[in-house]
């Protein structure tokens, strides 16, 4: 077995027992990337000083282990483009809070990962630097927008990865790549230095091999930040303290059973959820507000924010001028500008905000009865290469099941719940809980992962 295939926890333990060295890990990792990165196109850049930095960090919590970072996190001295040619060659003179804390905890930025340009998409096919392929099956897409980070996990190109999610961008690629994706509560992790997509829902978080790894990594960077006015003022808990807990007596509601498009996926999920009953939880089907309305709400609010957030790339500063904006960015700028225009704001933006409130109220009611809600993460398996060009609303449809909980800021974890023998592609389940209750989703997702056979690292 190659050492880059170890989980974060296994790597830390083996290093501490001196069974392996950082040099050995990095050697195997470098070899894997040299062999396959050109084809898979996961990393946009690889840090040539990674091992040197790793050795200096060997005593810290993350032991100098290699972490993949999505290219929308500003990294001081390292080119950061959000996969858009508009920012071609942009080298930030400042560090995002997440990567600053990652480094302080002994994580090493191994490389910057590919993504949909500006995080606009769910395929990593709309990157200005070429598409990323799914390491589980290279005829398929990795999902997105954090597709590079999810693929880095599936390909063992890093021990853990960092992504960001606006509505699905961590959990959907994690689902498609058979990895764990953890979107914390909005405000749990600082957005400072993350190139903004839709500011009111952008949430950085880990993509990892196991729920445990995701918790270890999240511990490194969650918590209040003076540089982000929307970050939570309260200290973050130790997320690893919610691992290996009994879920006896917990109430789990299964939502979206009535959504026609996902009938087959739902059937598979229901079967797998039986294990939670065996572990002492109650599992019930429950009706939640129609997720289709959330597509509209999310699209309107997000486009409005995008049109404003991208205004700074005015062609005066930065590498590329505005002709470098791809079709998707242009569509979003136009739609967002339109919905904010006088006379239309009431019909679109303001109305969307009202429906957002309806979703908030719906969850409030549901969480009176249930600790955790669960549904498939994505309607189906990873789509084939080229699929994203089929519809301008490709991403919104693929993320349909995640949008309602994203626009309401809820925490959620994707864990694999099925693998197709023929295609080697995965399905993922999305566990969500009320704001600030990451503890609940961790407990259930961890129990589910450890008591099913679908995690490819735990079940080699």
């Amino acid at each position, binding site marked *: 077995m190659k050492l880059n295939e170890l989980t974060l926890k296994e790597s830390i333990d083996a290093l501490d027992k001196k069974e392996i060295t950082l040099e050995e890990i990095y050697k195997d990792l470098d070899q894997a990337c040299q062999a396959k990165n050109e084809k898979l196109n996961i990393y946009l850049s690889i840090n040539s000083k990674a091992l040197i930095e790793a050795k200096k960090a060997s005593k810290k919590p993350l032991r100098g282990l290699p972490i993949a970072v999505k290219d929308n996190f500003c990294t001081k001295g390292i080119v950061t483009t959000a996969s858009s040619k508009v920012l071609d060659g942009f080298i930030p003179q400042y560090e995002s809070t997440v990567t600053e804390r990652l480094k302080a905890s002994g994580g090493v930025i191994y490389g910057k990962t590919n993504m949909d340009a500006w995080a606009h998409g769910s395929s990593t096919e709309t990157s200005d630097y070429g598409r990323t392929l799914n390491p589980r099956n290279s005829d398929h897409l990795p999902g997105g927008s954090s597709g590079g980070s999810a693929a880095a996990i599936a390909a063992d190109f890093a021990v853990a990865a960092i992504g960001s999610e606006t509505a699905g961008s961590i959990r959907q690629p994690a689902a498609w790549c058979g990895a764990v994706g953890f979107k914390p509560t909005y405000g749990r992790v600082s*957005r400072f230095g993350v*190139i*903004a997509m839709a500011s009111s829902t952008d949430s950085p978080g880990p993509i990892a091999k196991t729920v445990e790894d995701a918790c270890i990594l999240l511990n490194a960077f969650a918590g209040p930040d003076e540089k982000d*006015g929307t970050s939570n003022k309260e200290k973050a808990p130790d997320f690893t303290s919610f691992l290996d807990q009994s879920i006896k007596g917990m109430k789990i509601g299964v939502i979206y059973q009535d959504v026609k498009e996902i009938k087959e996926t739902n059937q598979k999920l229901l079967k797998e959820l039986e294990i939670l009953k065996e572990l002492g939880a109650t599992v019930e089907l429950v009706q939640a507000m129609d997720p289709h309305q959330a597509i509209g709400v999310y699209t309107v609010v997000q486009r409005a924010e995008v049109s*404003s957030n*991208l205004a700074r790339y005015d062609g005066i500063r930065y590498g590329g001028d505005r002709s470098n904006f791809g079709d998707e960015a242009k569509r979003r700028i136009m739609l967002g500008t339109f919905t904010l*225009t006088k006379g239309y704001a009431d019909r679109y933006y303001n109305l969307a905000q009202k429906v957002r409130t309806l979703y908030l109220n719906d969850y409030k009611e549901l969480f009176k009865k249930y600790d955790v809600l669960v549904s498939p993460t994505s309607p189906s398996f990873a789509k084939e290469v080229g699929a994203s060009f089929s519809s301008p609303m490709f991403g919104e449809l693929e993320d349909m099941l995640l949008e309602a909980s994203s626009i309401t800021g809820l925490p959620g974890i994707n864990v694999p719940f099925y693998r197709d023998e023929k295609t080697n592609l995965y399905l993922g389940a999305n566990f969500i809980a009320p704001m600030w209750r990451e503890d609940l989703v961790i407990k259930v997702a961890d129990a589910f992962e450890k008591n099913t056979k679908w995690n490819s690292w735990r079940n080699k």
Partner: protein
Amino acid sequence: MPYKLVCGLEVHAELKTKSKMFCSCKNDPFGAPKPNLYTCPVCLGMPGALPVANRKAIEWTIKLGLALHCQINLFSKFDRKNYFYADLPKGYQISQYDIPFCHDGYLDTSEGRVGIHRIHLEEDTAKLSHQEIDFDGDGELDKVTLIDFNRSSVPLVEIVTEPDIISATQAKEYGQKLRQIMRYLDIANCDMEKGGMRLEANISLRREGKNELPDYKVECKNINSFKFLEAAINFEVDRQTTILQNGEQPIQETRGYNSTTGKTFSQRSKEDAADYRYFPDPDLPPIEFTTEEIETIRSEIPELPAEKTTRFMSEYNLNEKSAKNLAINMEQALFFEKILKEAKKENLDPQKLINNLLNGKIKFSFDEKISVIIAKFKAISSNENIDEKELQLAIDKVLNAEKDAVAKYKAGKTVVTGFLIGCVMKELGKKADVIQVKQQLIATLS
């Protein structure tokens, strides 16, 4: 004149907080030794940089609102005002749209009350300077625009009045009083020449006797002194009157003021008016205050010029003119009040004392001891204690003795007055108040 002025003012003032509105950069655009020194990713609008609101600036805005008798919104928020300009690095300005911190207040002037429509807080833009330099090194001058971000994101309050202003002099008085209040509150320097305070006037006319607002308005910008404000309004009144008398309606537009010609000129018509696509800034959580917090801010407001003037009049029997003069600024008011208190204790006439201080008869400096100033006043006062009868005796004696001089005076040669005063002083044999002597001498002569 058949038409009457309808005018509202929009005043922008930079707050003098230590740091900028949304980042920790130093807020000192005028004191910076070089351009672009006080900058960071936030005020440069770099990718991923986030604004964090300056609490002090918000409290000061509310303090100003309270000083202007405004209602305060306990729940407020910042909005994005989206537009493109080279001095705006984010492509939007963080401002306030539908829920400003303060609304519905007033400021009284000698020509009536001016309603305050709203006061909101926003960030200033960077400063553009258009220059000719050899930019590309080919030995020839190029026209370039340089951008200084020292001013980018400096806290800026905007105070908008109701269209209550009825004359150019009232507009000027309003502006001066507003500036005085901000200085009293110690929240803004309001240096108009440098752009620390900027004026815009919305000017239109309505027919005498009508009450409804005119259906057009002309916005006058780039006014950087109260004198120019007065001149611009007067110019507009004349210009618009002529147009209206010709049976036409003035165009709704933005006009600039040229201080060299004393005229306003058209800058932009209504057709190009921007749609700013306001929406709540998702980077900044809404701001909430409790009534207790507002009362704490209120309790920090010092006595303001108007109240000070009234109190000086009642407490020290000063006339209005003197009281207003003393209250011109806080430091001066505090200094003079110390003197007045002392004078009161010693049963000296405060009005006389202030007259002597203000007309320069008593020379003093602000760092002088109060007791020394009082002593100077006492010395002068003793001069004045000359008995009128005693003075009259002396005058009569002199006029009898200097018949030639008296004749010359009566022939119109008033220069002899000085000579006669000297004689009277000599006759009195002690220091006397020249003005008193002169007055009584002239009265006798006529």
